[in-house]
Structures are given as structure tokens and as C-alpha cells.
């Protein structure tokens, strides 16, 4: 069944995505508010530094590079978890932002900041608990309804509760203690530096590799829950494990970036249109596509209003919002349940 729905040969597409990602990362590292000429890049990276070069060298290596790498990893994580949640929930509109997993994590992080003035690991742990709780809630509410309605209703409820919780904590806290509300609703990649990357990077990539290895069960879920069980998968255990892994990815990331929406919705859909629904291909394609799109979005966010910056979530929602509309309208026109 997957062979028939596949639209483009996977290997060239994956290679092309990889090439685009590398190019985008190169371009994003080479430009920004501080002007660094292209021909100076090799010298700054590998050559001996001239006296005036130190600032450019620092900007390139300590400001831009970690940020570009971090946006690629974050984009990959959001898109891959989006693809996995869509299969797991058997629902095309599932996405960390829409379903409330990100805002659950944000609420957990805010609670840790305000109530315990926690250090980073306490904040990340609390964000993980928040996203775990939100994922289980979304899952169990979503199961009670057929079609996409349940998951969206669950998402509305979870997002509302979390937004009011975050609002309440923000109200309680003095605002120097707390990054402002826009951080949690629109996200920011400004917190990226090598220290943050040193542990979020390997952590996230290991978990993403694990998720990729689960392509068989995600494929089986496409057929239906009963069919998957007949194929020999222990669904209850698989489901629990996947939900925990997704929360382990999203929780700590949201603690650093705030909520960045729509990548998890748009990218898997685009990749499915290009490549079909075979998860062995779809999952790595989502990783590459998510990394590519968030890198480009952050590049735009840094350049458009330079020397100021746009909130990254604003850029991703500008791309993702219309796409969401199109998805909903298309489903209606063709009479499908999406």
C-alpha cells in the first residue's frame, strides 16, 4: 500500500533535502545583523585572525553558529514529533503546538521558574512533566471522539488551561524573574549557545533516532489499531513508550525556546505529499524538512527587521496558519475526513 501512495523516489528527495539544509545553514551562518563578507568566512573559521577579526570571529562562532545548529535541531525535533504524533493519534491535525503538548511544557517550565526559582535541570524536568501530562490528556480525550474533532477540542482545552496558568504565574511573578508572555506564546531561539547545545543536542538527537527506529509500528498504526495489534505489536506498551519519548523531546526544548508553532503540522504534511506515508522515509524526511524550514524561518526572523528581531513563532505561524486553512478547506472540498 505504501509503494502505491509514494509520489517521488525517496533517495533523491532525501539527498536534495540534505543539500538544501546544508546550504541554508551555510547561508544562515553567513548573514545576520553584523555584516561578514562571504570571502572572509574561511579565514575566520580556519585561518589566522587579523587584529580586527576577533569580533567577527566571535559573532560567527559564538553567536550565529550555535544558533543555526540549534534551530536545525529544534526544527527537526518539532517536525519529527509532529509526524510521530500524527501516526500515534491516527490524526492528521495532531501537532505539539495545536494539541497542547508545547503549552503543557511551557506551563511546567513557568511553574518551576516562579514557584521554585529552579535551575535549568529542574525547569527542564518540570517542562517534561507538563508536556507528558498534556500528551496523555490529549490522547485520552482524542480517543473518545471519532475524526479530528476530539483532538482539536482536547487541544483547545489544554491550550486554554495552560495559557491561563502561564498568565496567572506571570501575574504572580515580578517580571524580571520571568521572561515575558510572548516568549511562551511565540518562542525565541535567542537562548542558543554552545552550553545549551552541549546537552540538548545529543539528548534530542538520540531520542529522534529512537523515534525513527519505530517506523514499523507507526506504519502498522496507519492501518488501524486492531490491525496493528494483529500484526503483533503490543499497542498499549508502544503507545506509552512513544508518548514518554515525545514528551522527553519536547519538554526540555520548550524550556529553552518557548512555544514555536506549526512546524510539526506543516512539515510532515509537505513530506507526505512529496513522498507518501511510508514512515521509514517520512520520518527522516521530516527531520530534514523541519531542520530546513526552521533554519530558514529563523534566518528571516533575524534579517527582516535587523538590527531588531522578529519573534520566531510569528514567522512560523505566518507560514503555518495559511497552510492550516488550506488543509481544512481541502478536506471539506474533497469530502474526506482529512
Amino acid at each position, binding site marked *: 500500500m505504501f509503494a502505491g501512495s509514494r509520489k517521488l523516489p525517496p533517495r533523491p528527495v532525501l539527498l536534495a533535502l540534505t543539500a538544501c539544509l546544508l546550504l541554508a545553514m551555510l547561508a544562515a551562518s553567513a548573514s*545576520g545583523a553584523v555584516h561578514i563578507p562571504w570571502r572572509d568566512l574561511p579565514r575566520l573559521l580556519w585561518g589566522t585572525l587579523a587584529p580586527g577579526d576577533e*569580533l567577527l570571529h566571535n*559573532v560567527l562562532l*559564538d553567536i550565529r553558529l550555535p544558533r543555526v545548529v540549534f534551530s536545525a535541531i529544534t526544527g527537526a525535533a518539532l517536525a519529527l514529533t509532529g509526524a510521530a504524533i500524527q501516526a500515534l493519534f491516527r490524526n492528521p491535525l495532531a501537532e505539539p503546538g495545536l494539541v497542547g503538548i508545547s503549552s503543557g511544557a511551557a506551563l511546567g517550565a513557568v511553574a518551576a521558574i516562579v514557584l521554585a526559582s529552579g535551575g535549568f535541570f529542574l525547569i527542564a524536568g518540570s517542562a517534561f512533566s507538563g508536556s507528558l501530562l498534556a500528551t496523555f490528556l490529549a490522547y485520552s480525550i482524542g480517543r473518545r471522539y471519532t475524526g479530528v474533532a476530539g483532538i482539536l477540542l482536547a487541544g483547545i482545552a489544554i491550550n486554554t488551561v495552560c495559557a491561563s496558568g502561564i498568565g496567572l504565574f506571570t501575574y504572580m511573578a515580578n517580571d524580571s524573574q520571568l521572561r*515575558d508572555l510572548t516568549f511562551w506564546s511565540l518562542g525565541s531561539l535567542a537562548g542558543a549557545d554552545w552550553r545549551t547545545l552541549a546537552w540538548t543536542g545529543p539528548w534530542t538527537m538520540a531520542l529522534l533516532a529512537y523515534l525513527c527506529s519505530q517506523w514499523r509500528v507507526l506504519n502498522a498504526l496507519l492501518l488501524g489499531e486492531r490491525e496493528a495489534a494483529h500484526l503483533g505489536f503490543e499497542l498499549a506498551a508502544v503507545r506509552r513508550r512513544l508518548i514518554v519519548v515525545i514528551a522527553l523531546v519536547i519538554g526540555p526544548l520548550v524550556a529553552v525556546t518557548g512555544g514555536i508553532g506549526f512546524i510539526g503540522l506543516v512539515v510532515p504534511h509537505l513530506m507526505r505529499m512529496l513522498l507518501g506515508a511510508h514512515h521509514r522515509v517520512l520520518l527522516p524526511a521530516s527531520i530534514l524538512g523541519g531542520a530546513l524550514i526552521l533554519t530558514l524561518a529563523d534566518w528571516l526572523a*533575524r534579517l527582516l527587521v535587523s*538590527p531588531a*528581531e522578529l519573534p520566531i513563532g510569528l514567522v512560523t505561524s505566518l507560514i503555518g496558519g495559511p497552510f492550516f486553512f488550506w488543509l481544512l478547506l481541502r478536506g471539506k472540498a474533497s469530502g474526506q475526513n482529512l
Partner: protein
Amino acid sequence: MRRLLAVLAVLVWSGAAWAAPERVVSLGGSVTEIVYALGQGDRLVADDESSLYPEDAQKLPRVGYYRTVPLEGIVSMKPDLVLASENAGPPKTLDRLAQLGVQVQRVSDGPSLDSLYQRIEQIAGTLHAEAEGKTLANQVRDELAAAQARQAPARRAVVLVNRTGSFMGAGGHTAADAVLRLAGMENALASQNGYTPVSTEGLATLAPDLIIITSTSLQASGGLDAFKARPDVSVTPAAREGRIAVINDLLILGLGPRVAQAVSQIKDVAR
């Protein structure tokens, strides 16, 4: 010859270390206003969205809003000094700026007179303009003393802001509250913390003798006549006795070097 060069080098180096910063980025409207008040505005190369006064401040490149400034955006202005309000952030960005070798000076930015004097002293010291700082502080002190010496009865007052269509009132721990107290007025909302929504009935119940509304809020409410005619406003003693003061947002919502102006304007209407 070599020794002479060494001595020269040391002199030049120490001269550089002692030279006043020439490329300054200011973060926070309350900071920018003082830089200009000290006559040091021409050293600024960029400021932030909250820097609205004086008008020249609005012509500088903007590095975003001072609470969420971008690291590279600031670096691109090639500053040798960043003057940051204590509320500026993210804190991590300011720390990283300092690591990159940019001098980052955080200055007091609280809603109190003490914080204002401290801010003037800190900024003047960092800009090597101590004399101008003393002059400015004395001028603020004298003008304020003169404004406070004027007789006006202590009124029960509220400060209203309308940005989104409904009214917010200034509670305790706000600059507006501090200005009211300096003017000898009683803030009817002093028991609240920060800015709180004031409902239609709330305003009537508070029954203030004096209403202060900011000029942009008045525009948003449809002008003075429309504001006075509102059912909740028209029943207050303030409206009945014609004690509605319209004050520029920046004067009343921040406690800056022009605080004496705000105090006199309040007293003018309180009489």
C-alpha cells in the same frame, strides 16, 4: 627609543581605558531620556522601542524592545558601551554581550525618586559626565521642591490608562503611584499591586476627587468630552467638579527627570 615607545604605549592604552565611551546603545526609555538630559545624546548609536523622549531618540536605529533585545543586533551597532535598564533583558543576552568584550552597565530603573537619582549618577559616571550629572540631579531636586511647595489640597486620585479599550488603573509600586504621592495626592488604588483593570462600576465606587488620564488613553477613549460623558466617569466627584487632568503618558507612567512637570500639572488640576 624603545623605552619611550613603551611609555607611550602605556599612556595610549590607559588613555583608551579612561576615554569616555563613544558608541553607546541605550536600552530602556528611562535610560535614554537621561542620556539626552545629560547632553550626551550624540554618543548614542542605537536605542530601543521604548525610547520615545526626546524626539531625537526616535530617529536612532532601534534594536527591538528592551526586555527582549537581540544579541547580534546590538553587536552590529559596534557599541563600546551598552547602558541597560535593570529591567532590560534577556539577562543571558546581556551577560553574553559582556563576554564578547562590550562594556555593559546596568542602571537602576525602579518607580521611585531614589532610583531616579541613582540612575542619573550611574549614567553620568559611566559616560564620564559627572559634572553634568550633579547639575541634572540638582535641577531635578530644585524643580521638584518648587513644584511641591505650591499649595494644593490632597485629593483622592486615580490614574487611568486605556490601551486596549478598557481602563487600567495604576496601583501601588508603579511610577504613577510615586508621582501621585510626590504631588501630595492619595492614590485610591494604592492597595492594588501594579496596573489593575478598573471596571465601570469600580470607578463609580472608588469615587475619586481627581482623575488623571494619559493623553493617548484619552484619544483612545474618544476625546475629553466623550470621556467626561461616560456614565462611570460622569458620576464621580472628579467629573462633577471638573478635576480631570490629561497628562502625557511618558510624564506620568515613568518617573524621570521631568517629574516636577508631572507634579505641577497634577496640582494645577487638584486646586
